[in-house]
């Protein structure tokens, strides 16, 4: 009853094949966009920006990136943190080397640089598969972090080894640096994330996405029916790294403002993103958002309840968080391997028929 299909007629194939074929769903999606663009910028404050909304948007981008590689193309990667670092350091180098360059293009170029690096580290994927490849991507993770830590050129020989984002503006409004207004950096990130999510959704629906999924489901069979494994796997690595690089650039320049590579882009970040897509749903764009929201909100919630509410020590809350996250991963893999996205799908299906069970 909540999802009325009666009277919702489609008169063309493109109507039938759209992302949200049910009118109610489509309007809900427009409503979410409207709230995100027209309401939140006016009510957002510093706390919400820094601790919830910005991390959610940034991690969503990164999660979409990893989901393209792991969820759609079936190549498990543990190098996400390293690729985020490439995006962050690329944006830093671009911002300091070309001060006139608009931050918008800086972020996109960082993504492009990360795509190139990602494709390079994706080359072995032709020969090695499965968890052999997962371990191979660890090489990318450790090597890249080491590189940014040890070669002074990347951090402009700053004394602390940290990188700090200079102030940059779009249309004369500051979006990076400590003086940027919360709504400005939020809107800037939101525009990018919305556009990228739209691109990702349509890429995965089209020819490219289909060939990724063919490789994921059975690579040798896909090769026999004419999917070029080299082009497909490398494109998955490149596109995925583009998203992760943009995410890394946003993470550093707009959200954090300053970063130290070992701390901000360590191996734990790779696992964090992997958990996001497992809990959210492998092979689903919505799942990337859901997983990111879950993993961003869980620590905040636990901290508020355990530390703020019950007065327990912070380290205890951190350990309990690990137990919960680890337990949830196992639970999701056992009970619902398609994650929160599948739960959402099931709920929708139920609501369409409600109150009748069949």
């Amino acid at each position, binding site marked *: 009853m909540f999802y009325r299909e009666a009277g919702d007629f489609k008169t063309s194939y493109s109507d039938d094949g759209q992302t949200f074929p049910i009118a109610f769903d489509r309007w809900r999606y427009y409503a979410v966009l409207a709230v995100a663009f027209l309401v939140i910028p006016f009510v957002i404050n510093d706390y919400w920006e820094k601790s919830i909304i910005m991390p959610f948007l940034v991690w969503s981008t990164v999660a979409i990136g990893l989901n393209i590689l792991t969820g759609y193309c079936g190549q498990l990667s543990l190098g996400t943190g390293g690729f985020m670092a490439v995006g962050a350091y690329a944006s830093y180098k671009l911002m300091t080397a070309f001060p006139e360059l608009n931050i918008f293009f800086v972020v996109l170029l960082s993504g492009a640089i990360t795509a190139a690096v990602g494709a390079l580290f994706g080359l072995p994927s032709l020969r090695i598969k499965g968890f052999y490849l997962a371990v191979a991507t660890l*090489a990318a993770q450790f090597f890249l972090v080491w590189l940014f830590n040890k070669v002074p050129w990347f951090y402009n020989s700053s004394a602390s080894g940290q990188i700090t984002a200079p102030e940059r503006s779009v249309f004369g409004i500051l979006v990076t640096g400590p003086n940027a207004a919360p709504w400005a950096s939020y809107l800037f990130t939101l525009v990018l994330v919305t556009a990228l999510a739209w691109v990702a959704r349509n890429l995965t629906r089209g020819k490219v996405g289909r060939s990724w999924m063919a490789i994921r489901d059975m690579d040798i069979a896909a090769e026999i029916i004419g999917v070029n494994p080299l082009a497909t796997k490398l494109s998955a690595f490149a596109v995925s790294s583009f998203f992760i690089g943009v995410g890394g650039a946003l993470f550093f320049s707009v959200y954090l403002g300053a970063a130290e590579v070992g701390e901000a882009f360590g191996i734990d970040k790779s696992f964090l993103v992997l958990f996001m897509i497992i809990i959210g749903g492998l092979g689903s764009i919505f799942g990337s958002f859901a997983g990111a929201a879950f993993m961003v909100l869980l620590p905040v919630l636990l901290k508020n309840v355990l530390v703020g509410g019950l007065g327990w020590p912070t380290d205890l809350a951190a350990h309990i968080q690990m137990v919960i996250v680890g337990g949830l991963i196992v639970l999701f893999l056992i009970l619902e391997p398609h994650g929160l996205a599948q739960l959402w799908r099931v709920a929708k299906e139920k609501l369409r028929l409600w109150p009748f069970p069949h």
Partner: protein
Amino acid sequence: MSIETLNLIEVLINGLMSGVMYALVALGFVLIFKSSGIFNYAQGVMALFAAMTLVGLQTGQVPFAHLLNAVTGMHVTHFGWNMPSGLAILLTLVVMVGLAFLVERLVLKHLVNQEPIILFMATIGLAFFLEGFGDLMWTAEIKQLDVGLPGGLSEWFEGASMALADPEAGYWGMYVDKLDVTAAVVAALLVISLTLFSQYTRAGRALRAVADDHQAALSVGISLRFIWVMVWSIAGLVALVAGIMWGSKTGVQTSLSLIALKALPVLMLGGFTSIPGAIVGGLIIGAGEKLFEYFVTSDAFHGVTGFNIDATENWFAYVLALLFLVFRPQGLFGDRIIERV
């Protein structure tokens, strides 16, 4: 011999020794992978958990003391007694067997027939769970582990190596840690006994049957679940040994779980299914990364390139394994991967 040569030999020996330590962790991986096709990422955390439990039991720590104190407002930390090492090791072993049982019951049973990659991710989840749980149970602070293993400088090596150099050259002798030598001996014993176990006992034969073909093993009456519990128990034992060695060397701390990450390239090099592969891979990685580090920080390297790099141990193993895999995807001793549609 010249001092440079002796230094090189010292680096090599120490590299081989640390390679043995990597191999100890890698062994646990190989066992589980061989018998069930599960790539158990949690092996490193199991070593950490075993070491934590051992220290906790030994020093009479109250489990979950931190949580209890926070919930009830009490202030308990220790029972106030010390347990002899032997008993503590035995009890820890019981805990690890219990853990194996629970893992089979709660996780593996439900994931039969899933893709290997799903199982791998499940063990990552398990690793997180276990790490958090261990911290909750025994607190996350660095703990001293002492089960009476010999440690410190080996005078015999120092003296023997000093005799090799010119008396006038002012050579001080090699530094070889006695603990590393112990670890090497223990690893050798472990490999021999594991090989004997799998070759000459009934349970070992069942284990090899399961490794060969799950369904065929089931059809001749081998209980897959018993085998899994057994294998995870043995992996728990290996984890305990690795935990004792690493814990005695560096103290029991959270970063111990990262040795799992060091064991991964060892496995890739040696092949996932080969016990000797884990040992050889460990030795190659251990010696390789120490020698590489020695080389890139040396004057000769500086003379050619004009700069020095350091801390290459972070990535050398991975890059080596990655390059190696491109040419031989199954590793040195691994089974050839044949795929059919």
